[in-house]
């Protein structure tokens, strides 16, 4: 089974044998891949019943919990890497979860849809909230309540003392080098928390 492009990229940034916490782990694909390909250990957290079931079927350690109530279950500095993939934009307490990631992990990896993507701007200029394959929701029923641009995220990271060490930007699954803040549909950041 092939891993989603952004998860492949994330996996590439995680050291063999690392202790990993995957927040919003979905069906556990990333953790299963990290276990099988890199000998990593760790836990996934997800709120949805079907995701928990799918993760159990992949023999992944999964904890059913709401990330909004924080990461109280985990101790300071417990993980080498904490991953939050395509979840930040849907979180009510977006700033808090980043702080919590910094508390429990030495390194963080965050991915999110880039609201600065040019098609979004075009849609706004035409007077409508954007609806694209990356954020395929109408404004009134979207789970994505905290959309941001690359620059927005970088400013928040700086405010929280997260030191960005790598950034990858993808457009429809392919890396983007020219005009990333306009052309990227998805951004992936790697940062140190100390």
């Amino acid at each position: 089974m092939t891993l989603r492009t952004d998860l492949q990229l994330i996996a590439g940034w995680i050291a063999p044998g690392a202790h990993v916490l995957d927040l919003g782990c979905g069906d556990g694909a990333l953790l299963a891949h990290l276990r099988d390909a890199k000998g990593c250990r760790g836990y996934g957290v997800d709120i949805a019943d079907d995701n928990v079931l799918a993760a159990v079927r992949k023999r992944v350690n999964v904890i059913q919990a709401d990330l909004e109530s924080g990461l109280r279950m985990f101790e300071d500095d417990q993980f080498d890497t904490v991953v939050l993939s395509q979840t930040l934009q849907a979180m009510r307490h977006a700033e808090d979860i980043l702080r919590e990631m910094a508390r429990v992990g030495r390194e963080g990896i965050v991915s999110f849809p880039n609201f600065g993507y040019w098609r979004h701007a075009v849609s706004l200029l035409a007077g409508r909230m954007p609806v694209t394959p990356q954020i395929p929701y109408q404004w009134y029923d979207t789970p994505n309540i905290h959309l941001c641009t690359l620059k927005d995220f970088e400013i928040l990271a700086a405010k929280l003392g997260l030191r960005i060490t790598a950034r990858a930007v993808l457009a429809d699954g392919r890396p983007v080098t020219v005009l990333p803040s306009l052309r990227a549909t998805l951004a992936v950041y790697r940062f140190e928390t100390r």
Partner: protein
Amino acid sequence: MVVKPGSVGIVTPQAMHFAEPLRLASGASIGDYTLMVETYGELAADRSNAVLVCHALNASHHVAGVYADQPRNVGWWDNMVGPGKPVDTNRFFVVGVNNLGSCFGSTGPMSINPATGRPYGASFPVVTVEDWVNAQARVADRLGIDRWAAVMGGSLGGMQALSWTIQYPERIAHCVAIATTPKLSAQNIAFNEVARTAIRSDPDFHGGDYYAYGVVPKRGLRVARMIGHITYLSGDDMAEKFGRSMRADDYQFHYDVEFEVESYLRYQGDKFSEYFDANTYLLITRALDYFDPARATGGDLKRALAPARAKFFLASFTTDWRFSPARSREIVEALVANDRDVVYAEIDAPHGHDAFLLDDARYHNVVRAYFEGIAEDCAARRPAEAGA
């Protein structure tokens, strides 16, 4: 008799006698005791597929199936254990044990004390969850099981599964603990004390030696069961089941049954008082009260669970206010801090504590998926020549 598909069918309990005294946490010991045991499925040649199912307050070794002479007496976790069920008896050899001090054939307060020739009654020693686990370990020895593929239980049964991982870390591969807690809260102990007070204050209790008088403190047992039953259900569940439904069309202005919920509680209480032993109720609720593995480590559950080597599956139910999800999360937190493998499912079910006994697809699917993993582990540990 027609056996339902998915049922283990007709089962026969066996009585295991143990001559060697078992030393108890209290310092007392009990010798010459019997434990009732039922098994389902086949023990693999390499004995790797054994699952112990631990019972809670009022259940027994009769986990699944029916008895030939009692076709309606279905095992208490029959929806969980059987061929093709989440704990699949086509794959696993499942063992149910009636705990020491219970009243379904194992030695308990109603049994004859060989030293006196009379029922133990009030003199039966207080036993703990740890004592039960030690007794279960002897059953495992007797069956030739060095290591359980899993020890499983809900509520008080989950406490036993948890305790196995601390007491016999090398003898349990997976701990499956559902709707349980690392220790009772003050509120929980308070409910138990109300139940015990109801029993002790029944004039037929006779200080626990009622057997000699040919009576049973049924009134006390009834109240104990009624209060217990209320705490096993959620408020929403009761509202849905009964609401304010009444027997008559209008108030009758008396104190007999007016509301359906009263009728239900009286029925449950009556039924319970017909089959359950009052001393056993005291004994088991006290075992519940005492369970607190972190007591030995200054209240630190992480340190208490440090010896555990098992992999863990925990589940709780959102409307369970007796053993709430927060209590299961405490266990998960301690396990994660110890870097143990753990799966935790928090199931949004309306049925309160009782949910662990009910057939809910989300709950059963995730247990089934976890046991498929246990079966894979069993196969992986099996030597190649024994495979297939």
